């Protein structure tokens, strides 16, 4: 799919923006702090309903304003144009969603209409960061492709907080009363186990498919016989007896048994020890944990392989290409990795941010044989100027005049 147009109102440092976007490569260049990343963030939010940088809507609203609005118009090649939009009103603490300008009541019915893959410097955290970073990566990715997963996540989180509030209450009760009231805890377990099992089953199958693609990509980038291994690690490994063909019903049954066996521990701790909230993905290079032993270069290669795998799997599942968002990462990659990235992109629409336009021309545009398909945009102080209408440096000259 290709974005045709991006509209912003009071989002980050943009007061109002209506931007037509090229169907191939788009470069947003300019000084730091002018709003390049904000553009990519806005596009990303239209696929995931969440920012890749913050969980707080206050951070996203332009200073002095109460609400923001983002709209992306996009089309599958040769098909009619669709649009997705989202708005947030801080005063009412409410978010609204639209598909083709028709309001969508639940975010879970909206996520997954439009697909993106974001690659930014923070993605290195996928290797060396905490398990929550990897879970978030997986959750955002799967939610775009399987809306039911997003609903299961929302349900699971609610059940988890219900169960944990109760455990916290029980922890401070005398043992006798706490035993008497054990039924109150048990009544959450069945729903909890089912929601968790559905999530775990999906995570396992997706990681299986993702790792197959990532391993292939890794070999072609690394160009040597290092092998990348990606494995799903549920909170309790024995819950999934057959990782190749995980079964929701079996996971549910095993998890339910675990919950009742661990109930005393859970009460003592005041929170639930087993469930989808404690999963991780193990990333290994030649059989050793990449988090601990991989060099900077190896980590970059692994992340790139994972991102390219994301694109491939999305293409495989949706039978169309996602929009690729490259936020200031090209300069982080050496020429071999840039080449590998360029080769994987093919005819995918790309939105790139970069501070230095000349560097980009020299190190990226020159790799491509169709440099005519690149559109340049100067980003300055919350405004975007397409090439041809780039303004004179009037502000600068005014300042020198005053001096």
């Amino acid at each position, binding site marked *: 799919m290709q974005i045709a147009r991006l509209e912003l109102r009071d989002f980050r440092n943009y007061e109002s923006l209506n931007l037509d976007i090229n169907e191939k490569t788009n470069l947003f260049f300019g000084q730091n702090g002018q709003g390049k990343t904000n553009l990519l963030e806005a596009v990303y939010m239209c696929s995931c309903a969440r920012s890749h940088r913050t969980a707080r809507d206050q951070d996203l609203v332009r200073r002095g304003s109460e609400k923001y609005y983002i709209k992306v118009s996009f089309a599958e090649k040769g098909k009619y144009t669709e649009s997705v939009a989202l708005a947030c009103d801080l005063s009412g603490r409410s978010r609204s969603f639209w598909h083709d300008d028709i309001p969508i009541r639940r975010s*879970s019915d909206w996520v997954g209409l439009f697909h993106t893959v974001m690659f930014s410097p923070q993605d290195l955290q996928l290797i060396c960061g905490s398990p929550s970073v990897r879970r978030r990566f997986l959750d955002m990715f799967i939610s775009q492709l399987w809306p039911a997963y997003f*609903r299961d996540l929302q349900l699971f989180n*609610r*059940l988890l907080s*219900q169960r944990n*509030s109760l455990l916290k209450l029980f922890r401070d009760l005398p043992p006798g009363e706490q035993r008497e009231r054990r*039924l*109150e805890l048990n009544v959450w377990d069945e729903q909890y186990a089912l929601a968790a099992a559905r999530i775990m089953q999906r995570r396992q199958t997706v990681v299986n498919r993702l790792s197959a693609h990532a391993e292939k990509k890794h070999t072609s980038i690394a160009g040597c016989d290092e092998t990348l291994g990606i494995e799903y690690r549920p909170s309790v490994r024995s819950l999934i007896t057959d990782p190749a063909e995980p079964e929701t019903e079996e996971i549910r049954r095993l998890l339910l048994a675990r919950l009742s066996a661990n109930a005393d521990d859970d009460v003592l701790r005041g929170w639930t020890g087993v469930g989808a909230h404690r999963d991780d993905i193990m990333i290994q290079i030649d059989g050793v944990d990449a988090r601990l032993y991989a060099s900077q270069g190896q980590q970059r290669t692994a992340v790139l392989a994972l991102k390219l795998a994301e694109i491939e799997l999305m293409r495989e599942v949706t039978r169309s290409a996602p929009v690729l968002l490259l936020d200031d990462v090209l300069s982080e990659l050496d020429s071999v990795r840039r080449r590998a990235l360029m080769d994987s992109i093919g005819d995918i629409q790309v939105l790139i941010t970069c501070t230095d336009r000349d560097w980009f021309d020299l190190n990226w545009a020159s790799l491509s044989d169709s440099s005519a398909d690149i559109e340049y945009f100067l980003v300055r102080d919350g405004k975007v100027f397409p090439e041809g209408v780039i303004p004179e440096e009037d502000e600068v000259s005014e300042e020198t005049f005053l001096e």
Partner: protein
Amino acid sequence: MTGYPPPIAALIAQLGSLPTIGNKSAQRLAFHLLSIPEDEAVAVAQAIIDAREQIHLCSVCCNLTDSDPCAICADSQRDPHIICVVESPIDVLAIERTNDYRGRYHVLHGAISPLRGINPDQIRLRELFRRLQVEVEVQEVILANNATPEGEATALYIARVLSPAGIKTTRIASGLPVGASLEYADETTLSKAIEGRSEILL
């Protein structure tokens, strides 16, 4: 707040504290009440006072009523063998509109939710269990709690407590709304609907 005379400001604040009424609507309602003839406005106030004074919980089913027991509990035509458990008085009205259900009700006034500090003692569960000890003729308890995580947990709680007593508990079916097309149903609803499928009898 905005320089209204205190009585108006107080009225707006009171109206605004009601559910689904925002500040704008509260202002509009307040000025409406001040623009209509005085006796009409006083009638609104009197209606609130009367309702508060005369309406209380039925000592049997905990529904809101102005008599005790309530009209449904007092109705001898009602089937005493079935009790339908619901979360709120509005649910009673919804089921009554079907004109098909002839049993009686029990209103819980909420659902268990540890997150909001609501444990089984804070809703009318004790009244239900005590009632079932007295009304030995009850053969079935229909659990018509909402299909929310909290409603499901509450239904399961009741079922677990009642099972040693040998009282049959049933949970209302969940699935597709009548007249809805399949393509608009979410996956959870669909899988529940498939789970609860029934054979077509020929």
